[in-house]
């Protein structure tokens, strides 16, 4: 058998296998994410809160013990410890001991907390927190031991004084997996083997088998999730009933109304289907053939491809995904398009507000246009002057003029920041010499913008100058001779000959330059730092601030990044089209 076929078979099998694995993983994750979390955590939290408050309200030892018993009986899914701790004496050090007032381990009632035990220590700390806060607290995580999460704690008041603290701790066991996932994986494995065998010995059968397997898989997945769903519902009902008995009310808690998220299935199963369809149409075999044929090319691409995939593409995709989440206090919540809506609607801010997206977009576009215009005009003008073969010292001029390009740009930015300093800056000094007023550069938008543009122009014209010089050198001299013979005046030569001939070289440089300028973080961030009030910020610094300076809003920042990307993508598409049109025309 030819090697090509074997590779093809392997790839097909790989496709089928990964299709199975993906759908299995999708189902498993969906169950784990919504089912387990809701079953384990939400009811437990609800219980704990209810219990702590209830105990705190009644505040007499027998009632506490009864409530405890009720909870223990109802909440079979939970392993929890509930205690009420004695107050400490504020007066006498030796009396600062806390005792159990009630506990689900009846033997310990009345005993002193043992500071050697991590559990007791945790209780002690929780009691201290509640005491100093003077109000009920929810979810106090122990930094050392995540198993000892205090879900709720409430002060017990007697005669207007802090008398005791009711505390509920869960020590969650390993979360019970809704149902074993192994049938799915076994199914996948079998399918993999089938696909492999069939691909090796009966190419036609392979297609049928892959399709059948995937259809079977999908059905099985649905059946399994509905099982998980049923178990979840049963648990929920049980929990609610127990709660009602404990609290003596008939209210429902919001935390309990969650249901398994369908997202993983909605994404996972179609993905699996698409992959198997690809396998069905022999993409695997064709890929193998082309991989064998172009082995060297692919080999050469592997190093860069891996690096890019890991450190550029993966972050890129992660960034895309992040745009649909909200990040707060270390937790990510899926919020759909909310971030984009917030940005694109201007976030309830008037158009003239510096944090309004459209304001920032306007500033960014203006910033890019002004900079690129200045870079090109200055660069081109210098190139035209320096092109003259009879000019003396032109090598020296050129070498000195590209110095800003060679300088690290954050140094440039900081230098210029210093030069625009109100008191000591060289710019104000010059103004004074000339007899003008000093300017407080960073206290109004227009002057801050000018400062930024000046810095960036200084930094960016050498690149355009070098590109224009290179392009000018490649224009054949006889074109100019012909123009001279025709008697064309100099400005006409420039506009009708030089400029059109320069365009092919300048065009990509301009597109590239505008992309760079659009995302020129360093200058804005270091020179004006957005002053005043963020008005001179461009999109990228704005996004940076959302991510790192205004409450870790990674999701919003990622949405900004995505919008920047879309803007630039369409800009370059349009620019490309324009350049093609202008070259055709």
């Amino acid at each position, binding site marked *: 058998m030819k090697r090509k076929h074997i590779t093809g078979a392997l790839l097909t099998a790989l496709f089928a296998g990964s299709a199975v694995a993906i759908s299995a993983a999708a189902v498993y994750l969906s169950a784990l994410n919504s089912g387990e979390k809701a079953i384990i955590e939400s009811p437990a939290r609800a219980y704990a809160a209810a219990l702590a408050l209830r105990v705190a309200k009644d505040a007499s030892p027998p009632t506490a013990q009864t409530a405890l018993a009720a909870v223990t009986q109802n909440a079979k899914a939970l392993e929890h410890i509930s205690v009420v701790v004695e107050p400490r004496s504020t007066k006498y050090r030796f009396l600062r001991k806390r005792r159990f007032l009630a506990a689900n381990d009846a033997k310990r009632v009345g005993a002193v907390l043992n500071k050697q035990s991590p559990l007791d220590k945790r209780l002690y700390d929780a009691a201290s927190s509640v005491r100093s806060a003077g109000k009920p607290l929810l979810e106090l995580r122990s930094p050392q031991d995540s198993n000892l999460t205090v879900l709720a704690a409430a002060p017990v008041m007697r005669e207007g004084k802090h008398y005791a603290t009711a505390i509920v701790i869960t020590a969650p066991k390993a979360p019970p997996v809704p149902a074993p996932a192994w049938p799915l994986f076994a199914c996948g494995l079998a399918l993999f083997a089938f696909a492999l065998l069939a691909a090796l010995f009966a190419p036609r059968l392979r297609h049928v088998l892959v399709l059948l397997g995937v259809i079977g898989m999908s059905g099985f997945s649905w059946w399994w999730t509905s099982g998980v769903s049923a178990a979840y519902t049963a648990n929920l009902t049980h929990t609610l009933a127990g709660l009602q008995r404990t609290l003596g009310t008939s209210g429902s808690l919001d935390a309990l109304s969650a249901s398994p998220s369908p997202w993983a299935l909605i994404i996972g199963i179609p993905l699996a289907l698409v992959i198997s369809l690809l396998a069905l149409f022999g993409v695997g075999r064709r890929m193998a053939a082309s991989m064998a044929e172009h082995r060297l090319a692919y080999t050469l691409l592997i190093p860069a491809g891996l690096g890019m995939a890991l450190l550029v593409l993966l*972050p890129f995709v992660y960034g895309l995904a992040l745009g649909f989440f909200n990040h707060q206090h270390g937790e990510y919540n899926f919020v759909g398009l909310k971030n984009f809506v917030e940005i694109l609607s201007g976030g309830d801010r008037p158009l003239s507000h510096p944090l309004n997206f459209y304001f920032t977009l306007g500033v960014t576009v203006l910033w890019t246009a002004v900079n690129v215009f200045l870079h090109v005009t200055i660069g081109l003008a210098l190139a035209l002057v320096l092109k003259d073969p009879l000019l003396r010292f032109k090598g020296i001029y050129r070498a000195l003029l590209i110095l800003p390009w060679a300088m690290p740009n954050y140094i440039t930015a900081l230098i*210029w920041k210093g030069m625009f300093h109100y008191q000591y800056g060289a710019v104000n000094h010059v103004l004074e010499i000339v007899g003008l007023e000093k300017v407080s550069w960073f206290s109004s938008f227009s002057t801050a913008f000018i400062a930024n543009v000046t810095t960036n122009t200084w930094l960016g014209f050498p690149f355009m100058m070098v590109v224009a010089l290179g392009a000018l050198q490649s224009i054949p001299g006889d074109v100019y001779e012909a123009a001279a013979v025709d008697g064309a005046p100099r400005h006409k030569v420039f506009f009708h000959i030089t400029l059109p001939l320069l365009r092919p070289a300048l065009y990509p440089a301009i597109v590239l330059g505008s992309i760079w300028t659009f995302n020129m973080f360093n200058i804005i961030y270091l020179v004006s730092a957005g002053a005043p009030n963020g008005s001179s910020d461009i999109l990228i610094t704005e996004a940076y601030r959302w991510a790192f300076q205004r409450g870790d809003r990674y999701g919003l920042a990622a949405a900004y990044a995505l919008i920047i990307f879309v803007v630039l993508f369409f800009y370059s598409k349009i620019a490309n089209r324009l350049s093609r049109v202008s070259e055709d025309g």
Partner: protein
Amino acid sequence: MQQSTKMNRAITHLFLIIFTGMTLLPVALVLRKAVSPGKAFELTINPIPSKVTSEHFREVIGKTSSDGKWLFGRQLLNSTLIALGTTLLGVFLAATAAYAFSRFRFPGRNGGMMAFLVVQMFPATLLMIPMYVILSKLGLLNSILGLIFVYSTTAIPFCVWMLKGYFDTIPKELEEAALIDGASRIRIFYTIVLPLARPALAVTALFSFMTAWNEYILAATFLNREESYTLPVLLNSYVGEHGSANWGAFAAGAVLVSIPIVALFYALQKHLVSGLTAGGVKG
């Protein structure tokens, strides 16, 4: 006629001298600050220092950490290693990929090239969060290697486009002749193609080096121990948001940091035009 061209030339020179002067002024001011005493910028644009001192250089170079380690040396070493590593790795990655794109027609070629172009448009500063997560998962935070990986991959797209453009101008027949002469593909790559692409390789190396040597934000985020800082991070600490700015030390540091990169830039600048115009910029 004669008179007017002379006149023209004089005006040209005057213009160039003024413009060059303006361009050099900020640099001159930094040089002056670096050698004059005091922390603040002085209120003058005269680039000649009135009093010369080496105190700022001594301060920057002699800086030690709280436990007495020599910081500047460590940071200079970090910066150098990172920049050299990035250059080597970046040039290697970009050259192999660019060669594949230039010489072979394989499925996925256009998509791949497009991807290399498009990722440039995604603001790199914002890739930081996911990069941070990935580096920490790989255990490469706070390490030279981590930054080398990050810098060389972020420099790849531009370098690949530039090199591919240059490789495209090397006639295919040369490689075919070598193939018939008995050289292997890999051998052809490094005995024929790479030597001929020297200008573009030089520019690629320069850009990779500059990327790594000059970068501040990522370095400041990924490195959090003073002795693993790079020079830009050190430099920014003199005029950063905390505390009062020490412009003298900053200027001295800026001079020290800029000298190698400017020297390298000038050493390779004669390739700049040919490398750039044959390559990426012409697309």
